[in-house]
């Protein structure tokens, strides 16, 4: 299985939201809905505050509970990778996968009644390109690639920098990494 990962540098992200706009444009995300979003996390006590920006989306987990709990197989892994996709023709709109995602990342109910979500832009990945959000980032804080290849940019960043993933305790093994 090829494990694709996104590595996002919280030190260079300025929270501009360009990734969100790029995704909406690239994927024709229905009005009012979003497949990715930016979080501003502030911690500390005034005046000693620390702010971190995180561009978040589906984590394309190695152990995706949204896939294991889908009753029809509509939620599936794309071509022996960790990219989680939904097949609209198999989706009943039962919403089990929305409840099954501990990251509340499986958010988009397409107006036509099936689940729509971040695809890691597999249609671009297939052509060797980066996902739209990664390509559009003006600070180049986002990186994408395969973790199986030790020479890939993402592998190197994770080897040399300190990082975290969101709530690793979920056991889902998320594949969106945040550099600290």
């Amino acid at each position, binding site marked *: 299985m090829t494990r694709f990962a996104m590595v996002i540098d919280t030190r260079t992200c300025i929270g501009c939201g360009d990734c*969100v706009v790029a995704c909406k444009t690239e994927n024709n995300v229905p009005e009012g809905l979003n497949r990715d979003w930016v979080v501003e*996390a502030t911690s500390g006590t005034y005046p000693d505050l620390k702010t971190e920006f995180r561009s978040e989306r589906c984590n394309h987990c190695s152990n995706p509970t949204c896939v294991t709990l889908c009753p*029809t197989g509509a939620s599936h892994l794309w071509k022996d990778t960790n990219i989680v996709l939904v097949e609209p023709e198999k989706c*009943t709109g039962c919403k089990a996968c929305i*409840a099954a995602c501990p*990251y*509340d990342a499986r958010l988009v109910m397409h107006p036509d009644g099936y689940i729509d979500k971040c695809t890691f832009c597999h249609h671009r990945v297939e052509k060797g390109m980066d996902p739209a959000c990664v390509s559009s980032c003006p600070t180049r804080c986002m990186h994408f690639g395969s973790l199986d290849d030790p020479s890939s940019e993402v592998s190197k960043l994770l080897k040399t920098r300190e990082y975290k993933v969101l709530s690793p305790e979920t056991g889902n093994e998320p594949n969106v990494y945040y550099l600290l």
Partner: protein
Amino acid sequence: MKEELLVTARGNELIDPSLHIWTWEVAMYLFLGGLTAGVMVFAALMTVLNKDEEAPFAAKRLALLAPLVLSAGMTTLFLDLEHKLFVYRFYTSFQITSPMSWGAWILVVIYPISIMQILSTFRSGYGFFAGFADRMTIGREILDFCERYRRQIAMVAIPFATALGIYTGILLSAFGARPFWNSGVLGPLFLVSGMSTAAALVALIARHHSEKALFTRIDLGLIVVEIALVALFLINLATGTGQQIDALQSVLGGPYTLVFWVLFVGIGLLIPLLLETLEITGVSKKLAMLAPILVLFGGYALRQIMLDAGQESSWTHYDTQYNSELLERLHEENP
């Protein structure tokens, strides 16, 4: 302190500001599914234990309700689906890790078993309608067959109906992402609650005094077990992970406190417990009709409250709107 704020508007209808994907349709389905399980178990038990005399309604007529109640439940479940044309997709695959998939297939097995259960007592329970069937050879043969194997059919019905009852709870507890549901006690709790509602239904509609009394006693026992399971459920969450302890607050001071303790525990469990005790001990029979109605109400309330409090519980909490309290939180000293 720590605050997590969404800086790009997300506003995805079903999850912001908190997850709310399922409403009364699913609660009703869970309730009716549990009731069906209870109805089938009691009809079967009365057969296996030879209670035709003592409990004529439960032994001979009750089974008819199972497919009707279940169909009503499946209808409300269908109403909840967002992609209704593709409902057949439940039956084009079996997903071993998905309780919903198990449930879909259990239902396929439940229907024929329940129909055979009805036919096995159709002549004694619904003589008028059985007369029509008896006029045709095939009808006669089917009824003969089911009557001959009445006991065996009942023996098969018990484990499958039990599975149906437990599944309605497992369906929720399998969601590790929703800490409030993440307790193995939900399976047995929903089963016992389903059986209790079925016993209450028999106590409500059976005509014979002895049968009413028998099912009131059964229901009393089930309510006691259910109270114990509710306690175990609360203890389970209270001694669980941080997420579970957090989630539990929704019924210990949070938004669901009142409905949980007053509507479910008070009106749905404790008051019927009291009324049924008074009835059995012969102290007062005045409110005998009220107890089963409250039990049925409590059964539904349990599903609705569990469903609502559970889907809101989450691992992630963002403040999605500007909120002046956030500024104050920034000034707070670190705990």
